């Protein structure tokens, strides 16, 4: 009849009390477990965010160098000319084959004049926007051609600013073709349909005519452009090869954006791409803003889960400690009988601990059954909250520079970058944040058991102070 046996006898005799203790302990452990589950889920979600955040590396003209060149050329001739630097498509493809790159999008722009159709004009419309849009020379057309590898990978389509409403996207296989996607308003004002042909004229001295084939129609969300004088309806999307041929840079491109497989590989990949491009006319810069923004809610959830675990563990220890201290008080006589028999106080504390240990095991089972459910609910709730706040802050921050674009800093290029980051944030957040996987791993169970043990050990320690200080005579002989 050792203290372990006594513990079992006590628990089975005091069924009500044992049940109550079981419920309290289960409640504590459910909270601890939910915390652990959320912690783990946030951790693994953070890892998957790293993979799917869509960190981008963009290769674009080194503007400082471009302007420096322009200044030096203007000192010789009266009219300053500006040449957008280009890089060969071979180099771009080579960098695109890096294992850390998921996909890339080449962007080339050119400016032409409408020939077989009329442009859409905005009321505030006025010509000019010279060097920002056209890229080559001072003469600018009324139609801007945005050449891309794929419209699906293009920021304005990712952000749903532009949306294909009929026909199809521009695809990589459209390279070297004359296929175009035009804006809905432009199409309707000129009665253009899928399959129709349109003609544009180059702005260069030759004024060459180019015949294009409409394969898709897109709708632009905003009808007034932030660029004064250019209605967004006058933008035509084509393959990246077309603007290059217009500007006489066939086989070369001016801008490319690489999207990474894994955001964690950002630094190394930037370095590799830099060495492949190998040109001081270009800047290779990464944008992991979206990654950081995705990471933040995860970190918030994680730190919240940490707080839950600690708070509940501390509160649980205090609650259990108090309950045990109170129960020790009501068990004074019983403890006195054991003391009078010569039982060591260590064994008495051992009995107390064993009782709680048995209850802990029971509570663990209940917590494991309930914790998964609670952790799932609480975790996703938390995440949903974090997600909405993060998206609103993203939206706000990108609202900022919209007012006066192209006037300061690096102009259009910068603006495009900001749009890009917003676009990939929302699309990646849909991928990464909604899948908070809250399952119980063996290590979670171990962690829970460890926490539970620490809680009851502390509670027993606290209450055993009152056992050890109990004067045997006071227990029994005193009335």
């Amino acid at each position, binding site marked *: *009849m*050792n203290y372990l046996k*006594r513990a079992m*006898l*006590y628990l089975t*005799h*005091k069924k009500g009390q044992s049940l109550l203790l079981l419920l309290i302990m289960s409640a504590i452990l459910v909270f601890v477990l939910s915390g652990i589950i959320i912690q783990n889920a946030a951790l693994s979600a953070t890892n998957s965010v790293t993979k799917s955040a869509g960190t981008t590396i963009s290769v674009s003209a080194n503007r400082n160098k471009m302007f420096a060149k322009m200044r030096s050329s203007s000192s010789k001739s009266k009219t300053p000319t500006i040449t957008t630097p280009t890089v060969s498509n071979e180099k771009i493809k080579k960098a695109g084959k890096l294992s850390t790159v998921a996909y890339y999008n080449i962007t080339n722009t050119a400016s032409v004049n409408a020939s077989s159709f009329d442009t859409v004009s905005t009321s505030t419309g006025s010509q000019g926007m010279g060097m920002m849009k056209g890229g080559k020379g001072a003469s600018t057309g009324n139609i801007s051609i945005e050449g891309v590898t794929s419209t699906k990978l293009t920021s304005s389509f990712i952000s749903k600013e532009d949306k294909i409403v009929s026909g199809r996207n521009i695809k990589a296989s459209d390279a070297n073709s004359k296929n175009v996607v035009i804006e809905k308003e432009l199409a309707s004002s000129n009665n253009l349909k899928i399959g129709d042909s349109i003609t544009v004229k180059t702005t260069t001295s030759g004024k060459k005519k180019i015949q294009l084939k409409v394969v898709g129609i897109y709708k632009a969300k905003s009808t007034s452009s932030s660029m004064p004088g250019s209605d967004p309806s006058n933008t035509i999307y084509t393959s990246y090869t077309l603007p290059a041929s217009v500007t006489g840079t066939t086989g070369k491109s001016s801008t490319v954006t690489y999207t990474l497989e894994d955001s964690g590989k950002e630094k190394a990949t930037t370095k590799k791409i830099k060495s492949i491009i190998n040109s001081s006319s270009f800047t290779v810069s990464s944008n992991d803003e979206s990654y950081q923004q995705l990471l933040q809610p995860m970190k918030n959830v994680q730190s919240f889960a940490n707080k839950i675990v600690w708070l509940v563990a501390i509160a649980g220890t205090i609650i259990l400690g108090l309950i045990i201290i109170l129960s020790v008080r009501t068990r004074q*006589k*019983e403890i*006195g*009988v*054991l*003391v*009078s*028999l*010569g*039982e*060591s106080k260590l064994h008495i504390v051992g009995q107390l601990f064993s009782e709680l240990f048995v209850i802990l095991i029971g509570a663990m089972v209940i917590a494991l059954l309930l914790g998964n459910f609670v952790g799932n609910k609480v975790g996703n709730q938390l995440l949903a909250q974090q997600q909405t706040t993060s998206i609103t802050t993203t939206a706000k921050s990108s609202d900022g520079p919209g007012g006066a674009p192209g006037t300061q800093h690096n102009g259009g290029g910068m603006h495009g970058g900001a749009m890009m980051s917003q676009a990939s944030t929302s699309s990646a957040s849909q991928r990464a944040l909604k899948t908070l996987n809250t399952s119980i791993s063996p290590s979670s169970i171990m962690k829970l058991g460890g926490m539970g043990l620490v809680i009851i050990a502390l509670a027993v320690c606290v209450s055993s102070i009152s056992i050890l200080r109990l*004067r*045997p*005579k006071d227990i*029994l*002989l*005193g009335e």
Partner: protein
Amino acid sequence: MLTVKNLTHWYGQADKPLYEDVDLSFDTGQVYTIVGASGSGKTTLLSFLAGLDKPQKGDIFLDGKNLKKIGATNYRKHKVAIVFQQYNLLGYMSALDNILTALSVTGSAHKGERQYVLDTLKRVGINEDDAKKNAQKLSGGQQQRVAIVRALLVDANIVIADEPTGNLDGENAAMIINLFQELAHDHQKSVIIVTHDPHVADQGDVKISLENREFVVA
């Protein structure tokens, strides 16, 4: 032989002791009864004899060996058995398990001998059914008899009882006193009983009264 030498004790103020320089001795094979007014310090003396507390001054010897040397826990475990006025048994187990617990804790020679315990309980009028019932379901008299059987079966040579009949009627009290006499006379233990009941006091082989802070052996 349990001997008390020069025992002085006070609570609070040293100049107002309960008693001073007490010398007493308790032999085996005898029942000692101690009477005295309430609050005179009888229970306090028992707490020293039971190794549950230590006097301010003086020593207690068991067969010539100082209790301080034997050690209080060791002394309680092997040398002394205590019967209280109430709450003698662990309420969450049967009478049988109570005694088996005591035998196990004290490391008695009769450890684990269920049948022997049941037989002994039967001899004091507690049948097997009652022995296996939860201890709290037994009457006060039955509980005291279980406590006395416990004192008998552990190896202790000294049995100390504080008002063991305090909650019992005359018939049950008589039965309990008989059992104590059996412990002393048949099993050669020293039995020391504190009581306020003159009938019980008269049953002792040696009667001690605590009057005016002095122990008087009759």
